[in-house]
């Protein structure tokens, strides 16, 4: 709205334009032929739609760090998935001008039966890197994950924290233009979490763009300068982090207070 003349230039690195995401919320999903035909005959073949995101707009400029806040089930992860191309919007469009590293869930491609070494290659290739490139980065990845002694043991013997170390190290082996982080760091220990934060900050300093989801307001304020607040799939507010967070906090406080009152009434 503010800068209509500049609109034409590709100034946004992430441009989420009027995005609506629809899920099938049918309590009984029809996933076999038999049921399909039975319902086809009975004319019960319906798609119980559930709108997880509704007309969401989010324009991000290069180098910004955005926090996505909202209660459980408000659509934060869904928004990240649309931006990372995992989900296709039902309506609207998403444009990303650059490479993305998304940490929706760490170690998504980790195969527990393979060793850490094999998993580094497998995971790297899933993210679209070439073998040669992973060869070059291999030592860095191992060093960052601090798993030198476990390289040749199967990942099924790892603790969940160790797995996320592996996942984070692979996912951030390259400096992406856009880094997407869902609540993935909650499993690591304090030291590793600090290390990850440091790495993310370094990336930000080098000009990367960040999209970050966390329920921890202190971390959010530490990392981000802008925020978008989602509620039931709709944008409530977006803009400066402090404004949005304060508003969000006060709404939540209000809600809590209301609930308390209702309890007391009973």
């Amino acid at each position: 709205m503010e800068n209509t003349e500049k609109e034409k230039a590709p100034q946004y690195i992430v441009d989420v334009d009027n995005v609506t995401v629809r899920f099938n919320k049918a309590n009984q999903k029809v996933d076999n032929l038999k049921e399909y035909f039975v319902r086809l005959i009975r004319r019960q073949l319906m798609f119980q739609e559930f709108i997880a995101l509704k007309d969401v707009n989010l324009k991000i400029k290069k180098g910004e760090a955005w926090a996505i806040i909202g209660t459980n089930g408000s659509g934060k992860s869904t928004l990240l998935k649309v931006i990372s191309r995992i989900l296709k919007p039902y309506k609207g469009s998403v444009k990303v001008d650059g490479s993305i590293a998304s940490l929706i869930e760490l170690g998504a491609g980790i195969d527990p039966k393979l060793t850490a070494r094999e998993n580094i290659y497998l995971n790297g290739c899933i993210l679209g890197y070439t073998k040669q490139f992973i060869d070059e980065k291999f030592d860095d990845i191992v060093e960052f994950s601090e798993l030198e002694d476990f390289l040749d043991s199967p990942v099924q013997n790892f603790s969940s924290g160790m797995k996320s170390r592996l996942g984070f190290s692979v996912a951030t082996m390259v400096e992406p233009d856009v880094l997407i982080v869902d609540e993935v760091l909650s499993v690591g220990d304090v030291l590793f979490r600090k290390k990850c934060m440091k790495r993310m900050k370094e990336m930000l300093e080098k000009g990367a763009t960040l999209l970050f989801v966390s329920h921890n307001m202190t971390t959010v304020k530490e990392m981000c300068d802008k925020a978008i607040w989602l509620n039931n799939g709709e944008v409530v507010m977006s803009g400066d982090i402090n404004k949005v967070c304060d508003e969000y906090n006060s709404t939540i406080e209000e809600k809590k207070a209301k609930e308390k009152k209702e309890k007391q009434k009973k």
Partner: protein
Amino acid sequence: MATKPRQYKEGSFFEIFRYKDLLVQLVKRDIKLKYRRSFLGYVWSILNPLLIMIIMAIVFSFLFKREIALFPIYLLAGRSVFELANTAVSKALGAITDNTSLLKKTYVSKFMFPLSKITSTTVDFIFSMGALIIVMLVFSIIEGRLLFSFWNFGIIIVVVEAYIFSMGLGFLMAQLHVFFRDIRYVYNAFSTMLMYCSAIFYDVGMFYDKAKDQINAGVTPFALYLAHFVEYCNPVYIYIKQFRYFIWVPTLETVPQWAVVTPVDFLLGFGYAILMLAIGVFFFKRSQDKFILYI
């Protein structure tokens, strides 16, 4: 950034070229895990087709009166090709649904999963050629002449055809399986039917002989239609025929008419393969964005 070139359109089939290193990793994983888990490993993958071949050879030589020269080689050759296509497709069928958690968390070309299953089955097939070599060696000794020849290398063409064909059918089944989980039963029934139509333990010459009798007797030559159906409408038989032409036919002193492969067979073989691939890719591409809503 040079590491993530964007030459291929997202969601297109050709994106597989961007992920070629992933294909290598996935195939390596399948092969490694297969041989790592079992004690006998490679020995078992050769022993298994050998044992089945021996049982089938004994049973069918009693059942059919017709003499097929070097029947064990004939049988094993036919069965190997059928099993290649069948195993490849039935593994590809579950490839999307088995990678649910991955597909929900990262973007990756979805074609890669059926493709890697087809590829690892093909690599496995090449390993299992050891069984065929053993049988041919044994019969070389029994017959007192060398049964191997340069022609044998022709099977590479057949493997390429079967690979492309299975890929197409695999993509088609994998995407159907996302929406209809019981499609596996339909596929199993279909593949059993196909097996009986693929002249694995009998020969097409049988139909032609029967057809002659029918024509002489003045009745409609149904056997002839059946023979044509198997020979021209069943791609799997076309591949089996070619495979035998390179393995079994060179060992024969007199070559039966029905075993001779002509350029038409290659044309048909590649034609079916490419047609199947086009169909598979078309439907897979059309429905791939909906996968995530159903897995």
